[in-house]
């Protein structure tokens, strides 16, 4: 059962081959068995899950079930869940229980999905390896000596290890796509504004976007259908009809114009990854796509621009964690200043503090123009590059990450090296475009991901291309040893 996709499970539930309760029990049992070695879950909500499964079974029996009714899914621990701790991977929120559900959580509940638990992540989504979590790193199921990627590392590893059929993730600079690539699963970061950010704890508000992570594009389509849509509680969410993503999967790839940015295939890309990618592009060509070389000349500026904008916003977004109203508070503060300094000093980890400092500096009087304003201008240039590219092609294809999953500790001493692991994903967030990672093979025993980038609100096309590819390949069906 655990090897089935969401689409297959949904069909099984509707056909009555098994109940949601049985399905949920299978996954809870697997979590109990395998998660101690992987550390994907911060919180397992077994009792609540069983209750939701029973309710879903009743709905299925009553015939008013939706596509996801009775399907177990898990939430990245950045989405607020009423009554269940939302830690954001931080000591700061180790005891925080939100009095509300995030819009994404609420929508899954309404759809009748069953929440298995909350997934581990880099602290406040700041990290590319899941090594910054207060709850310890998540292990990559393909090689437990390697990182799962980040920040949605718990989500990616849990899906890969069959500890959940689908998970939510968030992506600020690659946090859905890079771990999806490292763990050999499928994940999509929608257009900025497509999925509500209400109740999704902010890292960098102008870049953060929630999205689905699952084994196949079809499963991502089913999940995105539930997640996407206007929400009046999020002023940046876009009021625009949500297409039928699953229906769009059947479209043809014949005549699809694929752009390959030369900046994505140059120096810095691992040779084996380049080879694997080339094979995937050949598959797309066989399906009728045409391939064009394009250029995104300002790509090289995306990492520095991102590491001004994202920390600047984070320095402000994380100011609310001050030990006054909720979250971690230091023992016996001497005075207000001491309360602030020690609560934040003890409650935040090193990477979060580093980014708060960078961001505070970038916004300071006298530096604002040189850093923040300049970065915003670069952002515009990068968006323009993409705009021009999409005048020539329908989808941009490239690597998701410059390497496969790396070893624990390999990059922790060098933040810049760590930041560069998002070099191919960051520009997409800066421009607010949808981006996706699809498993396309292996380098050694570790998965390789291909990134698809679409025009604004073109999620349906990305899912369609990925689905057609997955119909003629089987990378998405591969399971890590011991997880099958």
């Amino acid at each position, binding site marked *: 059962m655990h090897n089935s996709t969401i689409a297959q499970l949904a069909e099984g539930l509707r056909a009555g081959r098994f109940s949601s309760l049985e399905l949920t029990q299978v996954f809870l049992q697997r979590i109990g068995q395998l998660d101690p070695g992987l550390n994907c879950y911060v919180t397992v909500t077994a009792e609540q899950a069983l209750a939701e499964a029973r309710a879903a079974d009743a709905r299925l029996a009553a015939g008013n079930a939706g596509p996801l009714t009775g399907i177990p899914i898990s939430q990245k621990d950045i989405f*607020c869940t009423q009554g269940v701790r939302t830690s954001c991977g931080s000591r700061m929120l180790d005891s*925080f229980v939100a*009095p*509300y559900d995030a819009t994404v959580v609420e929508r899954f509940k309404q759809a009748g999905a069953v929440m298995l638990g909350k997934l581990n992540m880099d602290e406040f989504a700041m990290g590319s390896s899941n090594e910054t979590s207060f709850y310890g790193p998540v292990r990559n199921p393909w090689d437990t000596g390697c990182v799962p990627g980040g920040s949605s590392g718990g989500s990616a590893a849990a899906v890969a290890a069959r500890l959940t059929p689908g998970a939510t993730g968030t992506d600020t600079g690659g946090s859905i796509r890079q771990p999806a690539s490292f763990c050999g699963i499928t994940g999509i970061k929608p257009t900025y504004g497509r999925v509500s950010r*209400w109740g999704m704890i902010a890292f960098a508000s102008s870049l953060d976007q929630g999205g689905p992570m699952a084994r196949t594009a079809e499963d991502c389509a089913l999940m995105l259908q539930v997640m996407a849509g206007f929400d009046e509680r999020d002023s940046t969410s876009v009021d625009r009809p949500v297409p039928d993503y699953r229906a769009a999967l059947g479209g043809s790839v014949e005549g699809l114009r694929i752009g390959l940015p030369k900046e994505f295939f140059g120096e810095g890309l691992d040779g084996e990854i380049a080879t694997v990618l080339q094979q995937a592009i050949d598959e797309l060509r066989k399906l009728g796509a045409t391939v064009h070389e394009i250029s995104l000349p300002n790509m090289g500026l995306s990492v520095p621009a991102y590491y001004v904008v994202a920390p600047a916003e984070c320095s402000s977004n994380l100011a609310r964690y001050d030990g006054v109203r909720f979250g971690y508070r230091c023992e016996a503060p001497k005075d207000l200043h001491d309360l602030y300094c020690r609560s934040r000093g003890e409650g935040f980890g090193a990477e979060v503090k580093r980014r708060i400092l960078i961001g*505070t500096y970038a*916004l300071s*009087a006298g530096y604002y123009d040189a850093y923040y304003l300049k970065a915003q201008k670069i952002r515009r240039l990068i968006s323009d590059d993409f705009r021009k590219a999409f005048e020539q092609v329908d989808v941009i294809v490239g690597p998701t990450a410059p390497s496969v999953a790396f070893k624990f500790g390999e990059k922790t001493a060098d933040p810049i090296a760590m930041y560069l692991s998002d070099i191919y994903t960051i520009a997409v967030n800066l421009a607010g475009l949808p981006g996706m990672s699809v498993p396309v093979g292996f380098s050694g025993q570790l998965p390789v991901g291909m990134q698809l980038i679409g025009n604004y609100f073109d999620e349906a096309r990305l899912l369609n291309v990925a689905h057609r590819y997955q119909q003629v390949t089987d990378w998405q069906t591969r399971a890590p040893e011991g997880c099958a």
Partner: protein
Amino acid sequence: MEWETVIGLEVHAQLATRSKIFSGAATAYGAEPNTQACAIDLGLPGVLPVLNREAVRMAVKFGLAIGARIAPTSVFARKNYFYPDLPKGYQISQYDLPVVATGQMTITVDGALKTIGITRAHLEEDAGKSLHEDFHGSTGIDLNRAGTPLLEIVSEPDLRSAKEAVAYMKKLHALVRYLEICDGNMQEGSFRCDANVSVRRKGESRFGTRAEIKNLNSFRFVERAINFEVERQIELIEGGGAVVQETRLYDSVKDETRSMRSKEEANDYRYFPDPDLLPLEIGAALIDEVRATLPELPDAKQQRFRSDYALSDYDAEVLTATRELADFYEAVVRSANCDAKLCANWVMGDLSAALNEANLEITASRVDADRLAGLLQRIADDTISGKLAKQVFETMWQEGATADAIIEREGLRQITDSSAIEAIIDRIMADNPGQLAQYRAGKDKLFGFFVGQAMKATQGKANPQQLNELLKRKLDA
């Protein structure tokens, strides 16, 4: 040495919306601490602001009333600083692109008109309150006020005295109440200001170094704080010192300003556009819609009162001080349909005195406009004298009855029948032959004695003018 004072005011007007500027929580004053603060006001993780449309309309209304440009695009920015009653660690405000830009207002000081420039007005959220009493050395936080919409109205440094500053603030106060965008309650902090004060030698074109006096919440405090500050700065400079740029607090008990923090200690607010809110776009349609709701403004009303009711500048100014008072006055005039000046005298005189004494607003007057008009009609048609009318008014105030009912019940109807008055005069003359003889012998002062006797005999009801005439004629006969 002659000194010139330069003042600019930053007025914070709390907008009279029902809910907060970025959340649905209520804004009513005086609720139990922290009962009017929702997850958004508390700054819980994951919450997001959504702009209150009504607050925007009110800002536009204000902008139109001062002839300002309404920005087609304005931007909300975060002002970052740590304080326990600032839940998010930043205040959402507007920085380089405010919603209202460059308007003006005219004030009158000592009979002279002066135009004061208004640099800008922007929307922002208020912070909560820190409560230092009753917590045994700790501080309590009440977040009911957090997220309350404010319109910050920034003047040019055009004010040259405490008196001008107060006149400007009063004018602004009247305006926001006319527009019904602020309740103007200064005790509750709905209308308060920061004053930027500096001095310079007469003739000097550059501004002196300014001090900012924070949070002045009464007209009296504005005047006293500025006057103190001006004295302090002049003394300092004349003593060879220099003013430092700093924030100061006014202590109303000691009547002095004290340093709060210097420029060096000032926060770097690290303003940047709030990524949770889209730029605020205001189109012509909204502006037209709001323009249609603009009431007659104080200056126009004053002008109309002068011409329509032939009132003096002073009367027109007093009667248009608030929209409610002006409405009351016009209701009296309409209903009484008599001398508008008489109406003005009564509204500004006896009625205002009674309201003051009872500490009531005009809208809560115990004698409403129709009833006051009823009384004034009886004065106009000579049913009662002005003097008796005061007595009737007092009874009306106490009992709430109409003037006619009281006049009837107490038999106060004025005696205007000449023959009746003559008969009384004849009797008094007959009863007081000695006084009559003395009067006729030239003791004119005794005229008053006869008036008094006649009034006593009629219980004050004789028409005074008529009585005087008849008495004179008979005594001198």
